[in-house]
C-alpha cells in the first residue's frame, strides 16, 4: 500500500481549490491514536473544557481511512515506527501530520547518548506539518496547532492570536 502515487491535478482550479481548502481546513478529522502521555492531553482537548469540536475537529476516527490529520502524540519507539508509517500510508490524501509534544518532535527527554529504543522525532520518517512543543503541551497548544494547520491549508488565519505573557 505504500506505493500509491498521488497524481497531481492536470488542470488547476483556483477558486475551487480555495473552497476545497476551506472545507478541508474546517473539518480536520484526527485519528484516534495515542502513543503516550500526550494522548491524555489530546483527550483533554476533546473534552468539555477545551472542546476541539468548535473547529469541527472532534471527529476522532479510529480507522486511518477516514482521517485527515494524524496527531503523533507521544514517543515513537523503534518497534512502533513501522506501524506508524503504515497508518500514515493508509490515510487517503490530502493528509497532514501534527507532531505533538517533545517526544514526537525530537525524542524529547528520552534522547541520550547511546539510546537504543526510540526514534528521535516523527520528522525522521513522516512529513510533519505542525510541531507543538511541551511535555506535554497544554490543550490550548493543541488547539493552537490545529489553527496553525488551518492557516497552512487555507493560507490565512481566521482567529485572533493569543499572546502569552
Amino acid at each position: 500500500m505504500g506505493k500509491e502515487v498521488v497524481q497531481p491535478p492536470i488542470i488547476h482550479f483556483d477558486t475551487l481549490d480555495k473552497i476545497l481548502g476551506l472545507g478541508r481546513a474546517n473539518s480536520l478529522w484526527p485519528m484516534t491514536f495515542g502513543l503516550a502521555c500526550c494522548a491524555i492531553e489530546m483527550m483533554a482537548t476533546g473534552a468539555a473544557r477545551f472542546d476541539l469540536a468548535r473547529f469541527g475537529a472532534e471527529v476522532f476516527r479510529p480507522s486511518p481511512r477516514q482521517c485527515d490529520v494524524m496527531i503523533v502524540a507521544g514517543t515513537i519507539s523503534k518497534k512502533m515506527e513501522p506501524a506508524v508509517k503504515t497508518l500514515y500510508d493508509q490515510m487517503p490524501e490530502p493528509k497532514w501530520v501534527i507532531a505533538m509534544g517533545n517526544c514526537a518532535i525530537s525524542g524529547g527527554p528520552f534522547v541520550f547518548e547511546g539510546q537504543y529504543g526510540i526514534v528521535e522525532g516523527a520528522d525522521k520518517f513522516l512529513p510533519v506539518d505542525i510541531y507543538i512543543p511541551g511535555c506535554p503541551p497544554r490543550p490550548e497548544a493543541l488547539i493552537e496547532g490545529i489553527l496553525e494547520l488551518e492557516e497552512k491549508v487555507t493560507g490565512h488565519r481566521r482567529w485572533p492570536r493569543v499572546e502569552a505573557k
Partner: protein
Amino acid sequence: MPEWLRVILFIIFVLSFAGLNAAYLVWCERKGAGHIQRRIGPKEVGPFGLLQPLADGAKLMSKQLFLPKGVDPILFMVAPLMVMVPAIMSFCVIPFSETFVAREINLGLLMIFAFASVNVLGLLLGSWGSANKYALIAGARCVSQNVAYEIPMLITTITMVMVTNTMNLNEIVRSQAGWFIHWHIFRLDMSLLMPVSFLIFFVCSLAETNRAPFDMAEAESELIAGAYTEYPGMGFGVFFMGEYANIVIGCALTAILFLGGWQAPIPLNFGGFLGVLWGMSWFFLKLYALIFTVIWIRWTYPRTQFYELLNLSWKVLIPISLFNLILTALQIKIFPWL
C-alpha cells in the same frame, strides 16, 4: 399537475431532503452531543457551526478515492449505494402531509419494510468486500441483529395493521384524526398494550438502523469502525447518509403509526396550501422530536453486549409483541364496535 411532473418534483424534493437532512442531522448530532456533554460543539464554522456539514461534505468529496488492497471492487463500490438507495426510495410513500406524498400506495407500509431489509444486505456485502476481519465480524453481527429485530418489529406492525385495517400510510394517519387522544399510542381501547408496542417499535427501529446502544455495525471501541473500516472519503460519507436516512425513515414510521403523523393534536385543519404547511410542520415536529430522542439515547448509554442484544429481542421483545398481538386480536374480536 400531470403525474410525470409530480414524480419529477418529488424525486428532486426527496433527494435534496435526504441529502440535506443527513448533513444537518450530523450537525444536530454533534451539537446535541456537545450540549449533553456540557460543551458547545461545532461553532466556529459559520454561524452556530451551520456551515460545518458543508465543510465536511466538501472535504469528503475531495478526498482521494482508492481501493484498498485485496478488496472486491464491485461489492466495495456498490455497498454504500445499497444502503443509501433503498432508504431514499422509502421516502416516496411517506406522507409529509395529507396531500404532500409522492405516491400513495396501498401497500406503503409493506414497501418500506421491503426496502428497509436491503440496507443490511448492503452492510454485509460492504463488510465482506472490504477484506478486513473487523469489518467481517461487524457484518456478521449486523445480519443476526437485523434478523432478530425484524421479527418483533413486524409483529408489532401486524398489530397496527389489525387495528387500522390498512397498509396505506396516509389512511393510517387519517384514522387518527381529532384530538391527540386519538393518536394510536393513546388508544388503549384498540389495544391495551399500545404504549408498550410503541416502545417495542421504537427500540426495534433503533436496532434496525444500527444506532447506539445497538450500534454493532460500527462498535468503535471494539471493531475500529466496524463495517466502514476500509471506506475512505465519500464511500464512508454515503454510508453515513444512508444511516441517517434510515433513522429518518424509522422515526417517520414511528410518528405515522403511533403519533398521528401529520395530524395536529387539536382538531383543526386547513385546506389548500396552508393545510399542507400545517400538516407538514406537525409531522416534522414529531419526526425531529423522535430523532432528538435517538440522539439523546446514543449519548447516554454504553453499547449493549452482543448476546444481550439478541437476548433482549428473543426473550423480551418477541414474547411481549406476540402477547400483544394475541391480546389485540382478542380485543378486536370481543369488542368489534371499537
